[in-house]
């Protein structure tokens, strides 16, 4: 376990380092002078030069990269060019929306996937299985932003159960805040959940054909108990992989959902920052998103080793 762990951890660090370099390079190529963007097109060359110096943009790239990374390590990210507030403040504010949204939709999608996937597998080839798989095929074809719009039309405009957009803030109380996140979470979770449900179903059916399932049945274990006690854990191995990949998609999906529902989360922040050429915000938010994806997948890898004892033997 420890060798396995250390190996994966080194890969994690290497990927994070690589990601930071790529993001930095991309921001270097990004056209548009931040100073000019901040001051407006009719700013005098002197003022622009002064601001460039003040922002530290006149120093060599390598130096700026190290300033950024060392700042990251101590939590000093500098100030947003556009808003003149610390980037950490912007990000932590946005995270208060994006993080609960991502968790909510991930939880919803996993529950949806497991319930539908297991039910369909248990009723393999029956009408309910065929119907559920038809619906899930439709589900994975729907663009999540369209589903979001439809949900707003139906539940917010027609039924008025949920607000059509905006975020009251957690200060306004827990329920109002959660209520404004329900529709975006459902929009994100439905599409991902449909995909995951199909994978769960086929994985369960695959495991059902394994010899050890027959052994369990020959021991006198009932069909139901075999599913829970023997099939599920084996079937979870490929499902976990997909969950890891999906978490990334989901996180970025929040960018779109936040746009539909006018939620001031990370997604809206990064889109606005790109338009404002607020490079310092863009690079930090993108790195944060990439880091979350990489770290989640790191934990998925660790979880594999817990689920599948064969893995440890191979990797050590």
């Amino acid at each position, binding site marked *: 376990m420890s060798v396995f762990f250390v190996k994966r951890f080194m890969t994690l660090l290497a990927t994070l380092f690589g990601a930071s370099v790529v993001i930095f390079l991309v921001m270097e190529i990004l056209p548009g002078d931040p100073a000019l963007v901040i001051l407006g097109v009719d700013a005098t060359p002197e003022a622009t030069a002064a601001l460039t110096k003040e922002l530290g943009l006149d120093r060599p790239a390598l130096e700026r990269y190290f300033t950024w990374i060392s700042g990251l390590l101590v939590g000093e990210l500098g100030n947003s060019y556009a808003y003149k507030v610390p980037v950490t403040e912007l990000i932590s504010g946005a995270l208060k929306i994006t993080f609960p949204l991502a968790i909510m939709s991930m939880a919803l999608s996993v529950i949806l996937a497991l319930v539908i996937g297991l039910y369909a597998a248990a009723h393999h080839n029956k009408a309910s299985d065929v119907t559920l798989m038809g619906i899930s095929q439709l589900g994975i074809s729907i663009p999540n932003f369209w589903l979001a719009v439809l949900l707003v*039309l139906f539940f917010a405009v027609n039924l008025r159960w949920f607000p059509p957009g905006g975020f009251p803030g957690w200060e306004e109380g827990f329920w109002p805040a959660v209520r404004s996140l329900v529709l975006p979470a459902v929009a994100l979770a439905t599409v991902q959940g449909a995909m995951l449900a199909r994978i769960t179903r086929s994985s369960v059916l695959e495991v059902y054909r394994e010899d050890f399932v027959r052994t369990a049945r020959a021991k006198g274990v009932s069909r139901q108990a075999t599913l829970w006690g023997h099939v599920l854990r084996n079937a979870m191995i490929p499902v976990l992989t997909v969950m890891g990949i999906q978490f*990334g998609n989901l996180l970025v999906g929040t960018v779109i959902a936040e746009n539909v529902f006018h939620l001031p989360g990370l997604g809206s922040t990064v889109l606005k920052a790109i338009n404002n050429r607020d490079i310092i915000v863009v690079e930090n938010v993108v790195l944060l998103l990439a880091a979350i*994806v990489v770290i989640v997948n790191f934990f998925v890898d660790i979880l594999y080793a817990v689920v599948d004892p064969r893995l440890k033997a191979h990797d050590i």
Partner: protein
Amino acid sequence: MSLANSQSFFARCLRSRSFVVGGVITAFLLLCALVSLFWTPGEAFVITVKDRFKGPSLEHWLGTDQFGRDVASMLMTGTQNSITVGVVAVSIGLFAGVALGLYASAKRGWTEELIMRFSDFSFAFPAILSAIMITAILGPGGVNSIIAIGIYNIPVFARLTRGSANAIWTREYVMASRASGKGKFRITVEHILPNILSIIIVQATIQFALAILAEAALSYLGLGTQPPDPSWGRMLNEAQTLMFLQPMQAVYPGAAIALAVFGLNLLGDGLRDVLDPRLSRKR
């Protein structure tokens, strides 16, 4: 392929329900795109303010938008855009990715390691995020969003190609060719590529659907196709601001995207059944 073989191939195609339904939907979309090049039921580009917000009628099948443009015509013209995006973006990813994958698989050693680490690494940036970053550099626009999606497709195909190619390299007939002194390039062209082609075609169909989704998302965010070129994603974005007035205008473009993606996904499933019976399971 002998005649008997090709006949059974078509017979198998027709027996796969996914293939038939997916094929019909995809053919319908292609037809829409083709027809819209010459004829549309109304005006997709011309702004006629007095005709705005018309309901569905014989003249305007799905009504008009806030600029008086015919929605059905815009949808039809938008098909061109989606298909172009799919074809170009998938081609970029396909050619570069398959070439890299084949190269990695033939070379092995550190070349393979390098290519694969790089494609692993690119998975840290999910599709839309990379597309957002790339359009941030190149600026928003239809062509740029296609390039962004195409670049994202490269590691997808590289991985798949390398994995399947490695499996073929261990087959006996490949060993035999190597033993008879054939070069790696020739073996790749003669044995490896033909054997992994069906897997790649199936994946290409699925990536085509994903490319349409990604382009729609980018256009929806305002980073993709720019006005006045009709795009389903942007139509949805424009309709959203008028959602309370004209709810149906937000429904049509999304339904068009969903139909296209649904058809292509089914076609991919069907192709998998037909091309590679080992992959599909008897029901």
